[in-house]
């Protein structure tokens, strides 16, 4: 094997490791919706909160104590999204997290201001990007995903960016003030399904971001409108690494063995893909098919043994 090939395989292996979800991670969720200003936005924000709550509970296994929802008006399931309550929510979560946990913060609303003074309009005084940055400081040991889906949210990225942290905004600057569609598509993406690009049953932050960005783009294209919102992601490598969704595990050692064998086969597929350019097409296809059938057989065996449910 040539040195070049070895390097390529090593790289593939690295990527495979990088794409793997963090083991034993717990996920904590904070959703904040600001002032809606109009009934249609209120409905949209409420739907987003409900969807996120459902997904977090049922698909990501988030405990209620780690799931904080703050909305324009308080209700039986949510507190009011005042600046004080937002600060308090961060504080509460900071006391709950463990190193390696994931904290997902999602803001919905209308943005104002620019630079460090960028805000999402809240009931009462607004919090600035700088304040959010301060509230995030206690989460240095966690994997933080901060998503601001408000209009004019772009300036949050430079203010909040930090190592190991992903900041996503609906717009590229504070000046993209038109009504944004990003929230709707991003939340839909979090439900998995369509957004799960590699169909592995787990959703990476990058997959959700790419899904939403593409849906926004297509929506504008379909409507023959000029794209007035350009979503940003601060660190796509970290965004690719952080995934949601419960990783399949098995107490049954026989199933665990099958899973390990399947994972090994998947790694072989990744390695094979790395060699594709240098292989005869027919040989590549035959080997690919052999591996894929083997993976499929493992999955079937796991299922038959009561795993992957």
């Amino acid at each position, binding site marked *: 094997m040539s040195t070049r090939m070895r390097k390529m395989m090593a790289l593939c292996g690295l990527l495979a490791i990088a794409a793997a979800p963090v083991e034993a991670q717990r996920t904590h969720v904070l959703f904040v919706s600001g002032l809606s200003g109009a009934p249609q936005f209120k409905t949209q924000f409420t739907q987003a909160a409900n969807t996120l709550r459902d997904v977090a509970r049922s698909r990501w296994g988030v405990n209620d104590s780690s799931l904080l929802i703050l909305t324009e008006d308080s209700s039986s399931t949510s507190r009011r999204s005042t600046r004080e309550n937002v600060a308090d929510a961060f504080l509460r979560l900071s006391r709950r997290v463990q190193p390696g946990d994931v904290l997902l913060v999602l803001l919905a609303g209308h943005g104002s201001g620019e630079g460090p003074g960028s805000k999402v309009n809240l009931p009462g005084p607004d919090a600035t990007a700088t304040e959010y940055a301060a509230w995030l400081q206690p989460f240095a040991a966690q994997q933080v995903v901060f998503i601001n889906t408000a209009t004019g949210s772009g300036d949050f990225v430079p203010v909040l960016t930090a190592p190991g942290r992903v900041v996503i905004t609906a717009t590229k600057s504070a000046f993209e003030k038109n009504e944004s569609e990003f929230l709707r598509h991003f939340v839909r993406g979090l439900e998995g399904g369509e957004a799960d690009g590699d169909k592995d049953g787990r959703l990476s932050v990058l997959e959700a971001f790419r899904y939403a960005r593409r849906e926004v783009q297509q929506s504008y294209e379909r409507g023959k409108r000029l794209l007035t919102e350009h979503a940003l992601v601060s660190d796509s490598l970290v965004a690719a690494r952080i995934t949601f969704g419960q990783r399949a595990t098995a107490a049954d050692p026989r199933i665990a063995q099958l899973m390990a064998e399947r994972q090994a086969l998947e790694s072989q597929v990744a390695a094979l893909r790395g060699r594709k350019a240098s292989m005869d097409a027919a040989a590549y296809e035959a080997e690919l098919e052999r591996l894929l059938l083997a993976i*499929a057989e493992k999955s079937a065996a796991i299922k038959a043994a009561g795993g992957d449910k």
Partner: protein
Amino acid sequence: MRVIPRRLSRVLAGLVWLCPALGCAQESRASNTDRFAALILAAEQAAARGHREVSVRLARQLTSQYESSGATNAAEHTSAGRAYVLQGVGNVNAVKAALAAFDRATALDSSYLESQRRTAALFLDKYDAPEARALYSGVLRRAPDDAEALLGLARVEEFESKGNPLETARKSANANPRFASARAFIARLHLDAEAFDSARVTARSAVALDSALLDAWSVLGAVAWLTGDSASYREAQAVARRLQPGGAEFDVFLAEAAVRQRRYAEAVRLAGEAVRRDSLSVAALGVLGTNQLRLGDFAAGRAALERAFALDPYNVWHKNTLDLLDKMRGFRTVERGRFRITAPEKEAELLVLYIAPLLERAYDSLALRYDYRPPTPIHLEFYDVQADFSVRTVGLNGLGALGVSFGTLLALDAPNVQAKGNYNWGSTAWHELAHTFTLGASAHRVPRWLSEGLSVLEERRANPGWGARGSLGWLVAYAGGRIRPLSQLNDGFMRPRAPDEVGNSYYQASLFAEWVESTRGVTALRGMLSGYRDGQDTPTVFQRVLGLSLAEADTQFDRWVQTRYASAIAAVGGMQAAGSARGNRPSPADSSGGAGGATGGGSFVRIMREAVTLMNARPDSARALFERARGMMPAYAGDDGPSWFLSQLALQRGDTTAVLTYLPEVTGRDETAYDANVLEARVRGRRGDLTGAMAAWERALWIWPYEAADRRELAQLAAQAGDHARAVRERRAVLALRPTDVLQARYDLAKALADGGDMAGARRELLSVLEEAPSFEQAQALLLELRRRGGPR
């Protein structure tokens, strides 16, 4: 991107005089003795005879004197301007200098009208009609009977399609009964309207006044050529050759006349001859290139237009077309059977999926109908920007049409050019392809009105609901006597008196075709086309094929229409309509009765309006009224017709049986009823009527194919019904729509392929899916299933 020189008027402000002497010459306003008179006359005569080199040499001689010694009066400046004009081919500076000279003449003597007329003519020649109009109007304020200015204004009106050029030209001829050019222009307008007798008589009267008037001889030549009068054609050609031995104007005129008769191949031949006679003729190169493109000869067409544009960079038609050709380099061309389909890259895959089978079906159907098989491949181009389609068709933006047929090359709006629910791209393609057959079967000699009528008839025959039906606007126009008789129906297309007349003429012409077929059979339609092919005129064709004079045909046809629409005509009695057939059609449901709505009496309209106002408060009363309206005008469909409202009321009360009584009356008569078709599809789907639901989805996709959800629903229905080919097509359509979840879409396609027995195709898709996503469990399961069924190796 090509750049057109800035408008002449703008250029003038910054123009540096070619010679300082021109600016400082002491000019006399008293005398208009022109030192250059003989020279400019000789130069223009040489140009008129087609001796371009001689003409340019003499013109240069004149302008050289002008530039060195200046001019002493307005007449001399004007002569100099005329000399610059003669040098203007491929020389923008000469055009600017001509304008400067004319302007100096006018500045020196504002009462000297010749310079202003020449300026106006120059502007018009460089396609700046507003400036030309302003200048001619200025001359006419000073001299209301100035025959040349009136003729110039008529040319402007024709150019801008504003006003009445025929009327203005007649004023010119009346102002100076000996002004032969006005008569030649009138003759040409008659020619354009296919009024060949009038064109011939008027051109003869022009020649009687001025036997050396090439314009008039050109009209005579064109009339003779178009009507197959070879003796008269040879006479006109011989005279034209004597008058202009070195030029190509006669040939260009003929080529343009051929284009107006949709005889594009002959136009190319004639324009080619014109270019051989005068390789610097912008007009000849333009006609040649434009029509080579219409025949699908892109390389030659582009080359000719590039040459024309180099010679005249003011020509926006050529610039637009060349820019479009540049853009089309990014289009994709797909060969399918007897068709070559070109579309923007992002549209091609989706559109080809549907249009290719439709075109094949249309070809077979039309070949049988007309006993004629056009040469293949037939080229169809889609444009996803209306301006591009418009430029492809006429060289300029602003054409309101949806499709065009140049014979074996068709151009069409892509479905997304129009708003959802405004356009049926399937029926439009069928319509344009029908032209290919009727033009071909008649050797491109069928008059436009009949060709359009046949195309609309073929739309109606193609699919339920397709093609124009008796709209309210047409009914009102017919009841009001505003539909032209057959003998004048061409004018309904060529010279509409109102915006809605073109649409009404389409329908009227289609009724005529239907009448002929229903009374004499399809052979009569074929016979008419053969008659035109053999050079017969319309009265002869009518007499030989229908056994009727035009007047008799008018009477019998009118009686047939009256009988067929008796109740509907009575129902709109007393009603007046405004607005166009498509965009601003009168709506009986418009309770405002405002602009664009139907006004006045008419019990149908009154009942509809009353019913609409009662829909929410008293739905039962509204239903009774809508039922009455439905009985009065059963054929009136659309989203403002009684059946649509009745279906909505039925839906409100959950009566899906009633919904399915009314909806087909909408979807079976309105080819753009997207919402109604989707509703019908869903209601039928819920009731388990898979076939009916699929049919409704099929109708909807010809209105708007871009909804991935629609495509998936149809795919699922097709799979349920065991219609695997359709399921596969729909799954491919989802992929062509570039879904975000590509892997799922490819898996769905693989599943549909497997269900349809295409194991190899399914395997190919699956492997590529799993290569990207080896953990995709659904795909894994299908791969195992394929192996069990003997698919994968």
